[in-house]
């Protein structure tokens, strides 16, 4: 089981590598989708099903869908693919930075396996993450309202940023 989770961890890092070294934003979005699916699987393996579901629906189903059609607005009509020399050198350079950082930072001597799951303390009435997020409605009501107000404010911010006709941001001078 621990090797399966290590595989998910490696796939998550590979997805982030695909986002960082993308030849074109289309492939970056593919890397981000793979990374978020693998991250959901990772959280599910630990037993945290609610935060995994929130990630899946809000992040993958909401935010990444918006990113995908923004990419279709903004990216090139003829993108370059993964096989080009420059992209391969870029990816190898990023991996090299990571490996050297891990070696210099002393990772090799002190690594260990092991994970604590949600049932680490025995049985309970409700799962750990369900009972935690439910506190949004009791002790966390203030932050809940702040989060909702921030989302409403963002709506108006977006409206003002994309307003054209010489009244929006980023006008050519």
């Amino acid at each position, binding site marked *: 089981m621990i090797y399966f989770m290590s595989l998910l961890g490696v796939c998550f890092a590979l997805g982030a590598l695909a986002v960082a070294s993308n030849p074109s934003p289309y492939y970056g979005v593919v890397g981000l989708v793979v990374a978020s699916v693998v991250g959901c699987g990772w*959280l599910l393996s630990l037993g*945290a099903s609610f935060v995994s579901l929130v990630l899946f629906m809000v992040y993958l189903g909401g935010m990444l869908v918006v*990113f995908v059609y923004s990419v279709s*607005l*903004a990216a090139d009509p003829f993108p370059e693919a993964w096989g080009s020399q420059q992209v391969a050198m870029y990816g190898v350079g990023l991996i090299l930075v990571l490996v050297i950082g891990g070696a210099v930072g002393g990772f090799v001597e002190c690594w260990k396996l092991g994970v604590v799951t949600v049932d680490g303390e025995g049985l309970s009435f409700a799962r750990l993450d369900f009972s*935690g997020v439910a*506190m949004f409605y009791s002790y966390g009501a203030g932050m809940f309202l702040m989060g909702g107000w921030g989302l409403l404010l963002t709506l108006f*911010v977006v409206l003002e*940023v*994309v307003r054209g006709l010489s009244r929006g941001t980023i006008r050519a001078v």
Partner: protein
Amino acid sequence: MSLLHLGFYSAFTLSCLGLAFHRTHLISALLCLESMMLSLYLTLSIWPIENQAASFTLMPVLMLTFSACEAGTGLAMLVASTRTHGSDHLHNLNLLQC
């Protein structure tokens, strides 16, 4: 360091480097920012599980809320840049030059 912690730590570092070395498109930088937010979400989710503290499970959901706000604002700037300059290439954003 646990081997699993290395997974999202390296994902965060790789996305940070990708944001620093962004090349042509603004949306590539926004995607690296989203990848950083994803690795932060996983980190914040795994921390209460490892310490068995249920009330800190609020934090990743709250972080996702504000990350959605930030992603929306970044995409609005992308749309504004495309409407003004015709593309989201980063060399178009050149007002601050010495």
